[in-house]
């Protein structure tokens, strides 16, 4: 008989891999790294295909309740170009109500990254549930969640494939016209939460050079637009040294070494 303990060391039934030398381990890692890189590139290629999806026209007027009252689907964009709406299960009849949202959605809420980076790419994340705003406000405060979270009041969930199960819908707007551009649900939701996972499901992608996007799509070099989450608003005050490092990291490193050498007289 074997004892199944999560933290114990006496798990005799578990057949662990061999212990090898650092050289052998590195060789095995390098071999697997080939597969890892293939997967990363396959993910990039898949995101490129998502960006070539047609856009679905939305004619219906949807209405949500938000922290400041009624809101349309257009309002959920908060003025930005793109919107991702995650449907979370928090309402009467769902396990945990009214103290908690469903376990899976709550785990997902815990892995939502700092939204300033997504917002800096002109994209808004919003959550939507059937629960009234008062319950959503209480839940957010209790769990320390800060994303915008709306109450659905109509057929939005049924119309966008999230009436029975959770899911992420991506939208883009052209002026006041809103289009649906992608949908991720089921196990696809597991991977959501990072800035990159959100951008990779949008019509415009990461908006970085080197990305395989249709012609004319906005692109700027990676690194350059990245900023500290408390500094996006204060860009005018960015120190020339950081701008130098951001725009020319290799050159900046050489210049710093030269300056250091000069300062200590070690030339």
């Amino acid at each position, binding site marked *: 008989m074997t004892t199944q303990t999560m*933290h114990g060391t006496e798990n005799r039934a578990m057949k662990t891999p061999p212990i090898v030398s650092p050289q052998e381990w590195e060789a095995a890692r390098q071999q697997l790294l080939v597969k890892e890189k293939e997967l990363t590139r396959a993910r990039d290629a898949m995101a490129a*295909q998502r960006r070539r999806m047609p856009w*679905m026209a939305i004619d219906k007027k949807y209405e949500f309740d938000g922290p400041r009252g009624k809101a349309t689907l257009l309002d959920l964009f908060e003025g930005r*170009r793109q919107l991702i709406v995650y449907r979370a299960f928090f309402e009467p009849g769902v396990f945990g109500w009214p103290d908690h949202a469903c376990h899976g959605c709550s785990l997902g809420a815990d892995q939502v990254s700092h939204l300033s980076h997504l917002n800096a790419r002109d994209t808004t994340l919003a959550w939507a549930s059937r629960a009234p705003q008062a319950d959503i406000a209480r839940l957010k405060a209790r769990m320390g969640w800060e994303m915008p979270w709306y109450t659905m009041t109509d057929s939005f969930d049924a119309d966008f494939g999230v009436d029975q199960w959770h899911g992420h819908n991506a939208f883009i707007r052209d002026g006041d016209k809103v289009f649906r551009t992608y949908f991720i649900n089921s196990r696809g939701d597991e991977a959501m939460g990072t800035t990159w996972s959100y951008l990779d499901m949008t019509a415009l992608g990461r908006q970085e050079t080197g990305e395989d996007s249709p012609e004319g799509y906005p*692109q700027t070099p990676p690194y*350059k637009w990245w900023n500290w989450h408390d500094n996006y608003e204060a860009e*005018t005050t960015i120190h020339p040294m950081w701008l130098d490092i951001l725009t020319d990291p290799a050159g900046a490193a050489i210049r710093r070494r030269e300056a250091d050498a000069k300062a200590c007289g070690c030339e």
Partner: protein
Amino acid sequence: MSATPKLKDWQQRRGTIIGITTKELGAPRIVDRSAFQAELDALLVREKAHTREGDAIAAARGRLPMVEIDATTILIGPRGPVTLLDAFEGRRQLIAYYFM
């Protein structure tokens, strides 16, 4: 000295995209619900294959050999020096990220 031109300059530099119209994006195909769903279903085959490939790679990671390292390596934590073993906090596994 006005701050506005500098902000605008920096926004341009990092490519803030406010104001780009659909036309500028090469006019993506606009379709109805059923045509959209058909394209979504087609791409879902690739999405699922990708998820499974990710699972397969994770399984291969679990089968990598192990290399023994010095568990007494010292790290400085909020409460002073600790060993690498201490960094496990009593759990079975540890992930360490080198943050620059």
